[in-house]
């Protein structure tokens, strides 16, 4: 029977949650790296025992941990993230120049075909790649230098490159998202980049339809249709049918279109999940009721999924990397909250149950489906 391994990054360590394919009974391992913020963990599709973790501390900086045995043991690998050449400034929150400074790794994205190749999205925004299992890291500077970099401004969480999508049908195509700059695409393996934000409208910036400056919170793609992209923007849920060249809004009947994560069902490319929050000032569910919203029509029409979720006095947040799906049938959907709960639905969102209730604030959730 297939198994699932859920990798959970929290403010104070990592946890690994495992279950068989029924996803009813769970084993919890952790905390790993206790006391450190674990922004992201990711497993290699090419070798599911190869895991990477971003371990971060305001005191002691950035570490990358690697496991070759599915998380049983770990060892630190390279943590030298040095921008290539002169960086120059980006814009600070108030529009003044601010030097580019490395802070942490937000996202790790292993290659789908080579366990030793992994991409890292970092703050201040840049894309790095390792081809030796994380021992050494080299920037792909074409992103930072593509032209709009000096105009990028940080979002509330910092100037972070938080999403990396690798097109499974075209190894030359990479798509990334940066808060609060927008989405960017390369069609030549990361050498050259262009902003892909046409159609986005952000009321809080001087030019609402500017080429860059949009606070993109998360992107999602179904591997069978890499030209179709879904976006949770600061406000607005968006869709592109042309690889990001243009976007249109699909917020439809959502009660609010502010939120952070967005994921696509493993087997239904038109089924999408978001977690609406009341507003950017009040980053918690509406009326204290936690709800995932699902669209089975690729957007516009959304339904609340609440069975098993707290429906009173719930004021948690679900962060941008805090939601994921497995590849089982029925598709499992998972999300972690800033209150430390990790919820699972083993039936594509119909019913939810908590796997754990009292972890530190959850920063990220990723899922491996194992044979």
């Amino acid at each position, binding site marked *: 029977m297939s198994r699932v391994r859920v990798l959970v990054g929290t403010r104070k360590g990592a946890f690994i949650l495992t279950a068989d394919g029924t996803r009813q009974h769970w084993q919890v391992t952790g905390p790993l790296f*206790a*006391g*450190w913020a674990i922004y992201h963990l990711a497993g290699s599709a090419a070798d599911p025992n190869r895991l990477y973790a971003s371990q971060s*501390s*305001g*005191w*002691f*900086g*950035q*570490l990358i941990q690697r496991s070759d045995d599915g998380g049983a043991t770990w*060892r*630190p690998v390279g*943590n*030298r*993230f*040095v921008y290539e050449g002169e960086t120059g400034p980006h814009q600070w929150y108030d529009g003044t120049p601010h030097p580019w400074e*490395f802070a942490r790794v937000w996202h790790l994205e292993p290659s789908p075909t080579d366990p030793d190749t992994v991409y890292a999205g970092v703050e201040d925004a840049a894309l790095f790649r390792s081809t030796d299992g994380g021992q050494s890291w080299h920037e792909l500077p074409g992103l930072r230098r593509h032209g709009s970099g000096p105009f990028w401004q940080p979002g509330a969480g910092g100037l972070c490159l938080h999403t990396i999508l690798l097109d499974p049908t075209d190894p030359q195509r990479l798509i990334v998202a940066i808060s609060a700059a927008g989405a960017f695409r390369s069609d030549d393996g990361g050498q050259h980049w262009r902003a892909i934000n046409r159609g986005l409208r952000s009321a809080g910036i001087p030019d609402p339809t500017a080429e860059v400056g949009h606070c993109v919170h998360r992107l999602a793609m179904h591997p069978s249709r890499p030209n179709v992209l879904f976006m949770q923007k600061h406000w607005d849920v968006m869709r592109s049918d042309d690889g990001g060249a243009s976007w249109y809004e699909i917020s439809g009947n959502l009660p609010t279109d502010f939120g952070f994560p967005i994921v696509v069902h493993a087997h239904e490319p038109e089924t999408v999940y978001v977690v609406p929050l009341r507003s950017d000032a009040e980053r918690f569910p509406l009326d204290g009721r936690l709800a995932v919203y699902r669209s089975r029509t690729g957007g516009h029409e959304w339904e609340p999924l609440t069975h098993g979720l707290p429906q009173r006095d719930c004021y948690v947040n679900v962060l941008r990397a805090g939601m994921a799906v497995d590849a089982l049938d029925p598709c499992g959907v998972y999300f972690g909250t800033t209150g430390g709960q990790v919820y699972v639905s083993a039936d594509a969102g119909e019913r939810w149950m908590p796997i754990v209730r009292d972890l530190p604030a959850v920063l990220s959730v990723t899922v491996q489906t194992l044979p």
Partner: protein
Amino acid sequence: MIRVVLPAPLRALAAVEGEVLLALDGPATQRALLDALEARYPALRGTLRAPDTQRRRALVRFYAAGEDLSHECPDAPLPAAVASGAEPFLIVGAMAGG
């Protein structure tokens, strides 16, 4: 031997308990001490000094024999009491965060 006391998160990272003892080749300076520490425990690379500049991280402090050595030149001699092993070199995570 020079005695070094690491903060708890770095003791866990380096998988050590108690003080670390280091023998230095050449003059006993802060830089030589940190180089030797990182050579013995590679997991600590980048945690005390920024990887690109080798400057002390802002929230890492160095103390010994009742003195704050955080702002000393990295190539200045360590206090004699540290160099002789009479006093430990204390690496401390700055109190921050409320």
